[in-house]
């Protein structure tokens, strides 16, 4: 039986990443994970059907993350982070032919026995507990990112009206 992780354990894994979330960008974060795991991550946009959001496919030396590029960018980022969470939390994969239709496997040039992990609402989740852990992992990351963005927007941001910017900055309203 798979041992479930507590919120504190997941928080510990996020903290152990030792990443500065004040300057978070998805690309930068992925590079950081690659460096930590010493393993390449390739992220590829794909035109999946609307209810399949992303798919993690581990290969011998590289991890592939396919994401649905028709989604909103916020949803794309969330789904990619979700797949990264599976990697970092050590979640198991399952044969993709159990979760993807044959035509999609063929499109992605993946064999029927290829292991992978999708983020989808198309079918019953293979391991709901691990899906929840991954979502929790993303929320813990977003908590840091959202807070940094909120503080920037509220207390540190400058005017977006070019003419007014030097006047607003000169007032020293920000923290």
């Amino acid at each position, binding site marked *: 039986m798979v041992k479930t992780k507590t919120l504190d354990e997941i928080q510990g894994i996020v903290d152990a990443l030792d990443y500065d979330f004040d300057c978070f960008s998805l690309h930068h974060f992925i590079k950081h994970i690659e460096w930590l795991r010493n393993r390449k991550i390739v992220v590829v946009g794909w035109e999946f059907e609307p*209810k399949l959001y992303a798919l993690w496919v581990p290969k011998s030396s590289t991890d592939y993350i396919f994401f649905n590029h028709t989604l*909103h960018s916020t949803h794309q980022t969330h789904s990619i982070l979700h797949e990264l969470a599976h990697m970092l939390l050590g979640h198991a994969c399952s044969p993709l032919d159990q979760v993807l239709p044959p035509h999609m496997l063929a499109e992605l040039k993946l064999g029927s026995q290829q292991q992978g992990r999708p983020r989808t609402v198309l079918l019953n989740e293979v391991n709901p507990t691990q899906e929840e852990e991954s979502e929790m992992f993303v929320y813990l990351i977003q908590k840091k990112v959202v807070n940094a963005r909120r503080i920037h*927007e509220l207390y540190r941001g400058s005017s977006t009206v070019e003419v007014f910017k030097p006047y607003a900055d*000169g007032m020293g309203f920000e923290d």
Partner: protein
Amino acid sequence: MPVEIVWLLKAGLWVIFFITLSRAYKKHKLSDVSARRMWSMFLLWNIAFTLWDESGEVLIDGFFNGLPVGLFLKSACVVLTFHNYYLMLKPMKPYMQHYRLLDGLAPIMLAVGLIAFIVYSVFQSLPYADLRYLVVAVRDLTMLVYVLSIFIPFTLVMWKNEHNWSLKFKQFAALTCFTCYSLVAFSGIGAGVVTLVGDTEAEAIASSTDPAVYVGFVAFMVTLMPYRWLSFLFHLERLWVYCRLRHLENAISRVARIASTSTIALTQLINPNELELVVYRTLISILDHYHATQSIPTCVHLYEQIQAVVNQNRDYTDLVKGLTRVKI
């Protein structure tokens, strides 16, 4: 409004002014020309506010043997503030040739004011009350030209284009301030005209817009406040955003037959960071499941609305704002 409360408001305004000014000074902001122009505007307007009612004028006049220094000083501060603000906004539309007419308006009005003050001081040929209504009418007419031709339209453009929440709120406060003082200006001009024709109703006309003075006063205070002081208003807005998104999520959950995001604790709603995360979680739940509404005949309109918001708003903030406007 009782005189004590008016003076309390004036004292409050100066306290906010000096707190914000000291913050700017500590951050070495005052070395910049734009900053100094902005601060001189606020200083002049603070002086004008302090002398706004007759009790303020009387206080100053007492130091000058009863000469109407307070009245002319206040009017000069208003005209200079508006001229400075005009110079700040002018670069927004430098090609508008007729705005050049405003370049000379303030210097002319200041010169006219100075001559009027000297003439009155020497001859004192008018009762003080009549002089007051006439000076205020000329000042308010000048103020109205600036406000209606430039300040309200340009501040409206800045308010629309501003994405910094705190500054957007300050632009809204500035708009409120200008609207209030336009109303005040109309009554001031009316009182001046009535004085000219010898009617005795000037006082009643001039005081008819007194409430607008104090609304404008509070709005002006808001424009001076540091961002952090306004953050509680942002929190209230985020609570409203969360309620709207949760309502939408519940509607989708009923159709998609899935559980909505877990129950939210009160502590999460009070803590700004937790609330922002709750908004994010609810948004992801909506994005995960809204496609389920596409196949339900009664929900097609809901699906189309959400899809349109998703297609048209690529930015997270705009997406959240757009979804709050979806009609269920």
